[in-house]
């Protein structure tokens, strides 16, 4: 918009080209699923929903690689539908897959599956109800951020989109319910093995939640899916691990700098956008002070004694019966 033909041609070509690496990624994910034994748990719901939705969003993006079409669709609800299609399908769904997959690793108990699936279906159908009508509305001439509209032909599809938005809201509310219920039932859903999904990657070989030193011994990796191989030859590799000598571990000391720095940076950014100069000054000054305090910290590391590491690892040693 407003740029010359050369710039438009450049962006058009770039928009088309970006589909190539993205398509390669989609095939990566499909071939990862291919030949596997898929269990329909919450993370895979999100992952599959992500792939389908992201592909649709990507395809509507390529439509806008044609500069004349882009000219017409600029600022229309078609564009809004497209980028929500990739942002919700590609980012929100992916993030939700990651959260539900790694939650037990971080907190030591799994999330409620039933409510997790309910959240997914609310988001999935809510998304399609809310944003598919926007494609049509965009082609009918509706633009974004309207204070009001007088074209009654848009009304039915707008109502469908509203229903979708309400469904998404329900999904968001259910996420909170899922978290509360999961916390209440945490004793029933404890992840005692550290490997609730029977995973293939190394983070599942350590207890949940992991100790501050993560791995007491660096795991030996000589092939893809090293943890899977370890589990196949259980009783040999794992046992040798447990009987090895432990060393004192150096780990970074807990440090609040990141929290305070982020707080000051948010204050600075927010104030600059809204031109609140005293807030901007305060945020900048705070960030500088926090940075200087961090620069003069010399006690950045603590030692975990070998006995403590050994005691923890013996307590969490894999048992023959487990897995």
């Amino acid at each position, binding site marked *: 918009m407003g740029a010359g033909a050369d*710039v438009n041609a450049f962006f058009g070509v770039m928009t088309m080209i970006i589909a190539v690496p993205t398509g390669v990624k989609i095939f990566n994910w499909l071939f990862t699923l291919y030949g596997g034994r898929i269990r329909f748990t919450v993370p895979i719901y999100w992952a599959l929903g992500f792939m389908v939705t992201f592909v649709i969003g990507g395809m509507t993006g390529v439509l806008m690689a044609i500069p004349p079409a882009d000219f017409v669709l600029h600022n229309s609800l078609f564009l809004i539908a497209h980028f929500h299609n990739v942002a919700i399908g590609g980012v929100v769904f992916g993030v939700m897959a990651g959260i539900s997959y790694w939650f037990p690793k971080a907190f030591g108990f799994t999330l409620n599956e039933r409510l997790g699936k309910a959240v997914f279906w609310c988001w999935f159908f809510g998304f399609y109800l809310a944003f598919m009508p926007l494609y049509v509305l965009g082609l009918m001439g509706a633009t974004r951020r309207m204070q009001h509209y007088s074209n009654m032909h848009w009304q039915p599809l707008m109502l469908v989109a509203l229903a979708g938005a309400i469904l998404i809201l329900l999904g968001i509310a259910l996420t909170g319910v899922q978290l509360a219920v999961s916390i209440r039932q945490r004793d029933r859903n404890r992840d005692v093995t550290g490997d609730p999904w029977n995973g293939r990657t190394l983070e599942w070989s350590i207890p949940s939640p992991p100790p501050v030193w993560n791995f007491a011994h*660096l795991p*030996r990796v*000589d092939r893809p899916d090293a943890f899977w191989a370890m589990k196949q030859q259980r009783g040999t590799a794992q046992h040798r691990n447990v009987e090895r000598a432990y060393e004192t571990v150096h780990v970074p000391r807990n440090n609040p700098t990141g929290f305070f720095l982020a707080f000051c940076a948010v204050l600075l950014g927010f104030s600059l956008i809204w031109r609140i100069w005293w807030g901007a000054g305060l945020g900048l000054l705070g960030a500088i002070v926090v940075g200087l305090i961090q*620069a*003069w910290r010399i006690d*950045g590391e603590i030692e975990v004694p070998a006995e403590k590491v050994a005691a923890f690892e013996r307590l969490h040693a894999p048992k023959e019966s487990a897995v």
Partner: protein
Amino acid sequence: MSASEQALAAGDAVPLSLRGPAPPRVVAGYGFWLFLLSDIVIFAALFAAYAVLSGETAGGPTAAALFDKKHVLIETACLLASSVTCGFGSLAVQSGERGSIYLWMTITFILGVTFLSLEVSEFGHMLSIGAGPSRSAFLSAFFTLVGTHGLHVTIGLCWLIVMLLQVATLGLRPMVTRRFFCFGLFWHALAFGIFVVGLLVFGSMIIMAHLNHNMMPMDRLMQMQR
């Protein structure tokens, strides 16, 4: 030398997975290079915007009318010279001679301040004759590009003061020399950056000003091809 570095130097057959984590110097250097690359991406975008918009003067002053070649030459020379003195300062950090660290880094600081004050006075002059960033798309792009670089130099100068205070209070412990190493990378990148700004701004000006000399008229070119 840490165990992992020794293993690397010996080139023996310890598998990568058993060598342990890289030493902090390598980790910090790697992280800082990533930061510099992200900065280079920002400047590449600003360069591209300047290249696209450099002709869009909206009836306002053009680059040829505004920029004094001598002025910019002195600015560039200041920053390139400070890059050299910063290099000597880094050598002094490595050999642990505090006296030469203070000497070379103070010279670096003075050269940086000279560059910055020249730039500020030039910006002030441009604003006073009504050639501010709101005058035309060309000037918006110019002020964004050169102003972002100037902001980097300002932050670099503050960083340098902090580093000299750190040497004075904490001594040359590994943490401090590591930070000096990162500062050196930052400063060299800035000097290189202004060099590229100069080449781009003046290169495009000179090429456009001598277009008739540089590009032969079409009819004569066609005759030669026959």
